[in-house]
């Protein structure tokens, strides 16, 4: 069948519908998932389709949204809990890190937590300082919970289906800026396995390592660089935990140069880890230092003009590449 071009929002929605139809134990809980039709319209129509039992609006109680989802998962359901935005997931951090990620271990395997926590993430659009976080690396810092960061509609659908079917907790981060971006999605069912990176563009002069929205900036930058004869290879990590670095190392051994692109803040972050891993795994292949393009180390302000200055973009990636490709 011919693949349809589908916005990421619709691909995620389709994945949820398919999995809910496949497995009675899968249900949705979170703020405004039902009557409101989903803050980001992802669960549009779900209340009508699946009813109140499986589409559960909650109070503004992030601690118990996460914690109750953990309990329900331990007991045998397969909750897809939604935290409206990842900013509010700070309030759920204890439930996620101390319980979702640890009960399997601390009771030595007696319980499993087949849980997916969906969060909308990312900044831009003047959401301001408290509503503009992309702290996925923080959640991936801890063992026991996977972290998914899809970069397009196709990946999002396949990754979410894998996450829902997996017996481990998964934080599934959806970049708000990507919700409306279409990409080809096949009619037939497919799964993208947990912990598999993906080379999004083949090149030979420099490796761009990214995830989620960073992939978009990287591909844009690659197109710009191509005009100047610089062929960039773009590796999409897709998952911050578990990390699949082989494709990154292989690419680097070919290009010997790397720029890491992340929407996140710069310190103790994704770029830091990639640079650390690369210099250790491929030291003899380094022709230049690994560069990082991140958000500026500032809280995000409201005014559009200065907010945009603080964010990464394709041009910043191009500039970073040119610092190391000469």
């Amino acid at each position, binding site marked *: 069948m011919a693949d349809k071009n589908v916005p990421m929002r619709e691909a995620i929605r389709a994945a949820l519908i398919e999995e809910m139809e496949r497995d009675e134990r899968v249900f949705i809980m979170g703020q405004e998932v039902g009557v409101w039709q989903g803050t980001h319209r992802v669960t549009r129509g779900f209340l009508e389709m699946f009813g109140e039992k499986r589409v559960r609006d909650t109070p*503004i109680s992030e601690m118990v949204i996460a914690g109750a989802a953990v309990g329900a998962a331990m007991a045998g359901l397969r909750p897809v809990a939604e935290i409206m935005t990842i900013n509010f997931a700070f309030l759920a951090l204890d439930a996620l890190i101390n319980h979702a990620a640890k009960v399997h271990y601390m009771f030595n395997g007696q319980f499993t937590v087949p849980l997916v926590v969906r969060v909308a993430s990312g900044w831009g659009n*003047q959401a301001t300082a408290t509503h503009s976080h992309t702290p996925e690396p923080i959640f991936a810092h801890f063992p026991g919970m996977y972290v998914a960061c899809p970069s397009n509609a196709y990946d999002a659908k396949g990754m979410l289906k894998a996450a829902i079917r997996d017996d481990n907790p998964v934080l599934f981060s959806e970049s708000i800026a990507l919700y409306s971006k279409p990409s080809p999605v096949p009619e037939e069912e497919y799964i993208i396995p947990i912990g598999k990176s993906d080379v999004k563009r083949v090149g030979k002069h420099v490796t761009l390592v990214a995830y989620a929205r960073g992939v978009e900036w990287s591909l844009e930058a690659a197109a710009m660089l191509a005009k100047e004869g610089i062929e960039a290879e773009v590796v999409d990590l897709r998952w911050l935990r578990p990390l699949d670095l082989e494709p990154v190392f292989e690419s680097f051994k070919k290009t010997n140069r790397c720029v890491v692109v992340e929407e996140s803040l710069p310190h103790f972050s994704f770029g830091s880890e990639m640079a650390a891993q690369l210099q250790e795994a491929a030291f003899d292949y380094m022709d230049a230092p690994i560069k990082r393009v991140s958000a500026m180390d500032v809280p995000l302000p409201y005014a559009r003009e200065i907010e945009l200055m603080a964010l990464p973009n394709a041009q910043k990636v191009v500039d970073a590449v040119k610092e190391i490709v000469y």
Partner: protein
Amino acid sequence: MATNTRSLDKVTLLDWYRQIVLIRHFENRCDELYHQKKITGVYLHLYSGHEAVGVGALAAIGKDDHVITGYRDHGIALARGVPANPIMAEMMGKRTGVSGGKGGSMHLASRAHNFWGGYAIVAGHLPLAAGIALKERYTDTENVVLCFMGDGSTNNGYFHESLNLSAVWNLPVVWIIENNFIGMGTRIEDSSGQPELVKRAIAYGMKEGGRVDGQNVLEVHDAISEAVAYARKKGPVLVEVLTYRYKGHGVSDKQYSEREDLKRELEDWTSRKDPIIILRDYLRAGFEGIDADLERIDAEARAVVEESVRFAEESPVPTYEDLINNIVVE
């Protein structure tokens, strides 16, 4: 209507009318400006419908008392006496805004007015209110803190921990729930096991300040005045004020076009319980030939709003320097 308000003079009542009308016009204008893309971004939560709550409550405190609220903060800022110009400039993300264009609609504040700001983490400002009140207890003053919050906020852990601590430490906070019966699209019955929110005071052995008609500025003023008097001398009070949001949750709210129940509800409130109409009728009943004053006030309010738009539009945008300053105190 409680008697102590009867004694209120015309000047005071007309000033309240002025504030309520100013807020109404200001919010309507913000709505326009948003659709004209002169106010941008994803968040804009209007105070329309709530006007009497902020105006009546803030009329019950003095300059040295404190005010803090959530993201639905425009009306509170105006009622606290923050000038319209820097507020409108903040809406447009201008350098002359109350928060230098860095806070935006949800984060108005004015230290000079002891207005500690609008906050966007639901219930996240409640502990701050407790802390500000602690400072006053610590320094043996009788100043109080008015902390506004929505009904939905009362189901968050912050609410529980903050109200409990204020009770244990006897902090001078008046906790004011602006109960508009809904949070985004979730009705209070679907979010609170106890929909009569003022009863939650019992969980903290806290004084109950009543369930008040938030569309009647005099009722609000009476209830908050009593609560404030108690808070100054004794300790925290929880007041539930019943009101309604006229413009939906925020600019992203599509429900009122989609949901019949909400449409009817809104129609009912605007037609029968509008704070402007209620106060106007009260003034007309109490004072002969007040209409001239009311019209003048209305015209002046419009002018203030227009001036604020002009001021904001002519103001400069922040610079790179603004982006990187005030992250830490150097």
